[in-house]
């Protein structure tokens, strides 16, 4: 059994086991996943109540345009920067990204909350030039609600609820997550923009905060970007 698997996963994975089978010869024409799709894009996903996954792409053209606008040296001294924002209550964590990284795990608040991400370049002056803005996500509620369910619907009545009401649930989620929680005070205050990261750029899921993904909040160099 592979380490770290639950029993259910081990059992489920047995469906795919063909132990000891020789490696197959794959197609000769090998597709290589592109390093970039040539667009400015950032996307946010919820891994669990405590961690977000964010990945992005940068259009080399927009960097070239910036180079023309502010000068090559300024761009060379700039840092690709990730901002994780609580759109409802304010508060932000800032990650000065190491070179070559395309994704990051970001520690979320322990309470249910909405998040949005921004990707941009932080110029030596501290100015943030935004390249892309992400979708908004909501981390899941953990633990039982204090409020007891009172409204009762019949199966037939549930069927009558139109799909556009269901569509509005996502927006309601963002709204309620934004209103329920207080201002976000990202937990870690350390600034470690040059902290070593794994070759694949991943720094999440470590025993304690303190990696580059936890360069939150006030008091450090990243504070200059705080709203």
């Amino acid at each position: 059994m592979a380490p770290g698997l639950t029993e259910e996963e081990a059992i489920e994975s047995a469906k795919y086991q063909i132990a000891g089978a020789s490696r197959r010869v794959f197609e000769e024409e090998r597709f290589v996943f592109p390093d970039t799709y040539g667009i400015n894009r950032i996307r946010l996903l919820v891994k669990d109540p405590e961690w977000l996954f964010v990945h992005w792409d940068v259009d080399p053209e927009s960097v070239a345009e910036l180079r023309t606008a502010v000068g090559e040296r300024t761009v060379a001294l700039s840092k690709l920067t990730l901002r994780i924002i609580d759109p409802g209550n304010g508060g932000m964590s800032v990650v000065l990204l190491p070179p070559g990284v395309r994704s990051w795990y970001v520690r979320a608040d322990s309470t249910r909350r909405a998040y949005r991400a921004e990707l941009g370049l932080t110029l030596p002056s501290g100015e943030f030039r935004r390249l892309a803005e992400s979708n908004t996500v909501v981390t899941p509620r953990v633990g039982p609600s204090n409020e007891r369910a009172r409204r009762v619907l019949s199966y037939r009545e549930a069927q009558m609820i139109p799909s556009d009401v269901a569509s509005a649930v996502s927006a309601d989620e963002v709204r309620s997550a934004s209103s329920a929680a207080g201002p976000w005070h990202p937990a870690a205050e350390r600034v470690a923009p040059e902290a070593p990261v794994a070759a694949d750029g991943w720094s999440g899921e470590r025993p304690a905060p303190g990696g580059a993904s936890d360069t939150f909040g006030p008091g450090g160099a990243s504070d200059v970007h705080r709203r």
Partner: protein
Amino acid sequence: MAVGYWCPVLHAHLPYVRHPEYPEFLEEDWFFEALTETYIPLIIVLDGLLSDGVDYRLTMTLSPPLVSMMTDDLLISRYHRYLDRLVDLSGREIERTQREDSRFTDAARVYHHDFSRIRHVFRETYRSNLMQAFCEHRDAGKLEIITCGATHGFFPLMDTVPQAVRAQVRVAAAHYRRHLGREPVGIWLPECGYLPGQEAYLKEAGIRYSFIESHGIEDAHPRPSFGVHAPIVSPGGIVFFGRDMESSRQVWSTEVGYPGDYDYREFYKDVGWDLDLGYLKDYLPDGVRKNLGLKYYRITGRGTALGDKEPYVRAWALEKAALHAGNFLQNRQQQVQHLAGTMGRPPIVVSPYDAELFGHWWFEGPDFLNYLFRKMHHDQDVVKPITPPEFLDRHPECEMAQPPMCTWGAKGYAEVWLNPGNDWIYPHLEMAAERMVDLARRYEHPNDLERRALNQAARELLLAQSSDWAFIMKTNTTVEYAKKRTRDHIARFTYLHRVLTQGGLEEPILREFEERDNIFSEIDYRVYR
């Protein structure tokens, strides 16, 4: 009248694995093994229950990839070959074991009998059409067949491109209509993965109910009064049944669950690895060792090394299966009696399992179900099996609450499908989905060739989205194959996107893609609009 209800749910799914480019392909065995060890043995059990007048109930996902494989001519013909080999090998094994070690002869006879019967059921009874078998049980009112995501895409991580989730649901619903002749009412969310708001896509497809992990109910807001033992309705209008952990653990857990009993068959010791290669040459066409489905040992003991396992005794194993069925029933009786007392209404205990757990992993699983349904029918009236629609007909009132994001993976969220071992796939899957949406908008009136390319692009995207690939990367089983499949589908999609946006489409290449990835022949790319 029953005090409470038991709702067993078997989630039957395998990724779409079909390789016409090779005469034999190792990973196609996933499907053949599941047919031989799980799906057909289950059909045999259900047929027996029906003919004996046992009033059983079972809810079962038949995922679109699985249905597609069950109805694919190439895979059916290959399965006939697979079965012929098994029957032949097990026949030879009776002779060999008599000659070399008679401790295993009884087991060899059991295999020969079972494989011969399975072949007869597949070939003669159902004429290679297992969908007929499932539909007969459905039409008898015993089996509730639910759908799934088109290719088992993991919805919570697809939400950045909503059209991709919608397509997974709509394509699955259309596929269900085509193969089952009805509208789907229930769905198994792939990996039990729920994200608030995604009910919209279910509603659009006419889906009325689904299932979520226990904390999806327990952590719902406001707090449901009856926990997982009564369904809730979300504000989006979908009824959700929650997974009961107690009954799940009794079967899933290798520590306290039934499948770990020492008299049950050992999964990991197979003749494909133990016997002489020369002897097995007719059954291992590439000369590469693999599981052949004949396993002669029992689990024997906790931590017993494979080399120290003792011979499997079928009679002992069946006795244990009956014993465990009795124990399971007794536990459910006590559970529903206790719950009914506190709830003031009949509880429902929902027990979802991977279908392949029964037979493939737990060899005696179908026998356990057989005994359990019979005991439940004949021996008592406290707990009765039920399907979700039946329960909702009898007890239509549901509390309204909003479940949080949840899955049935480790720790209850997305970690299994989103971790450093597989997170690299998501930028590419998302980009492909965005491009597919763009293609669907861009092509209002495609010519025939373009339409074929657009439909094939949709197939390639759907196949790339199977959660199985991320799962395999996490569980470290056949990682290279999972990576290959992700890469191959994205590669084919990327080619199609390029030629559809820049020109240069070559029909022979498109035809090859269509022949290889032939799932969803009826697909219409406009589902991505």
